[in-house]
């Protein structure tokens, strides 16, 4: 996605793809939708892990909080999907802030453990707060989104919805990380003492990264709830957090196209290697180790960066 034309081509293709393939089956659309959900999750985690350098292991918790928030609002408040989506984003963003404010002062490995613990506790609450969440049974019957009085029933409609959400997420995160905010985040990640010595106050930036990342994970969660029309604690386990993190790592930290690539790879791989399904997580673990040893920057890492911050094309001039 180097040039503007290239980007338009890809987006156009994604919009037209289902129309071109006359007899596209629901299975392929379903896979595409799952890729979309994970693309949002890995893009949002990349803000926290890749740009702010915070080793967070509880992203599935934010995803879950978003899903439950949206589900509860739609079921009990009979709110529309769109309102629930906004509410889920706001609530998870707030949780990101709440979790972020005590933990951002911690060093990498400590932060990892604390966020891991946070993820486990959120899941425990989903399981144990039966009055609200119905515990392990989960919340069924979440209504589908509707637009101008038309309820979404076809997979193709959900496909376009997630495509729009992915594009929106990509656009917003891309603008933010390529502003001064992103440059400051990377500086903090590389060398916090240096960041302070050039006038950057680190904590607000780290908090911003946390709540921004959490916010978009909430968007993904709200979509998931409406798409599957059911939420249960099983979808938001520690291994799901690891899976999302692996997408960020394999794609390349601090690389937005990389995050999407990571989501595509890790959603497709188990589908293609179905006969190896038992070994899926084992292979994932091995892939993470090998990646760290041989290519820690990921398949589409920062080295591919073509533009300076502020969107200034390299070789001086404005883009």
């Amino acid at each position, binding site marked *: 996605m180097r040039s503007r034309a290239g980007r338009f081509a890809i987006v156009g293709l994604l919009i037209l793809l289902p129309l071109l393939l006359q007899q596209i089956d629901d299975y392929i659309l379903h896979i595409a939708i799952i890729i979309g959900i994970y693309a949002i999750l890995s893009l949002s985690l990349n803000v926290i892990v890749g740009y702010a350098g915070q080793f967070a292991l509880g992203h599935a918790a934010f995803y879950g909080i978003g899903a439950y928030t949206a589900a509860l609002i739609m079921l009990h408040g009979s709110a529309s999907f769109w309102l629930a989506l906004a509410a889920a984003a706001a609530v998870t963003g707030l949780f990101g802030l709440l979790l972020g404010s005590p933990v951002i002062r911690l060093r990498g490995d400590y932060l990892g453990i604390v966020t891991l613990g946070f993820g486990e506790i959120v899941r425990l609450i989903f399981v144990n707060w039966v009055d609200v969440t119905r515990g392990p049974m989960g919340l069924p019957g979440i209504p589908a989104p509707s637009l101008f009085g038309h309820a979404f029933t076809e997979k193709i409609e959900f496909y376009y919805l997630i495509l729009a959400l992915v594009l929106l997420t990509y656009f*917003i995160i891309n*603008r*933010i990380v390529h*502003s*001064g*905010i992103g*440059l*400051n985040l*990377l*500086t903090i990640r*590389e*060398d916090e*003492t*240096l*960041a*302070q*010595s*050039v*006038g*950057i*106050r680190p904590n607000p930036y780290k908090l*911003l990264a946390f709540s*921004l990342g959490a916010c978009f994970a909430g968007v993904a969660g709200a979509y998931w709830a409406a798409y599957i029309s059911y939420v249960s604690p099983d979808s938001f386990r520690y291994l799901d957090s690891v899976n999302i993190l692996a997408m960020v790592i394999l794609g390349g930290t601090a690389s937005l196209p990389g995050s999407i690539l990571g989501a595509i790879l890790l959603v497709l791989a188990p589908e293609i290697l179905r006969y190896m399904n038992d070994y899926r997580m084992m292979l994932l673990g091995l892939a993470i180790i090998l990646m760290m040893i041989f290519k820690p920057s990921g398949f589409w890492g*920062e080295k591919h960066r073509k533009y*300076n*911050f*502020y*969107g*200034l094309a*390299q*070789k*001086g001039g*404005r883009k």
Partner: protein
Amino acid sequence: MDELLKLEKVSIRFGGLHALTDIDLSVRTGEILAIIGPNGAGKTTLFNLLTGIYRPTSGTITYKNRVINKLKPYERVKIGIARTFQNARLLKNMTVLENVLVAHPQCNTESVLEAIFLTGRRRERRAAIAQECVEVLKAVGLDHKLDVLAGSLPYGEQRLLEMARALVTRCELLLLDEPAAGMNPAEKKQLVEKIRQLSREFNIEIVLIEHDIGLIMNISDRIVVLDHGVKIAEGSAAEIQQNPKVISAYLGGEDDWD
């Protein structure tokens, strides 16, 4: 002469170690002050006190008639104190321009919404900020390498880039930690010229730590000598060369002076 920065009886201890004891020091407007002393004399610790990485155990640091003991490093940058590091500390995987951009006081004033809804006016603002950075890079002589990764610059240019980064903060007091370390004599000579020129051009006060006595004598208006965390002498180059305490620290010290 006015005193821009003043230290009164400043001490710092790490556990039982007295890193600096009762340091009195002042930086006057319009001068270049050098701090010298054997290895482990406390020079870099002094810089870390001035920039807020450490806080003094006792004593006061006054900048423009304001006690700044408790200000955080980023707050000190905002009031006009900037520094370079002993071993060039750069964002090695980022370009020269980005390394300077990050220190520009306007670089991080955009709100999230402004970043998302990037209006034409913001774009112009960004271009202007980038242009200012380019100007500063021109002053240190690096404007032909804007898109080079900082880590791939030769060492001497990395030091210059650090200076550009400090200057772009619009500092009034610039602290240079061994700016000539690792340079050959020709580069050192150029560096002296560069420091003088920048001091005039940007109208800033400079405090520098240096090992190279020749360079110090050449560049500084005043010299402070530290040994074992204590100030043992202060004065002009000529005075310092005559000072018996300095001579004994210089000759009898357990560490060499390089």
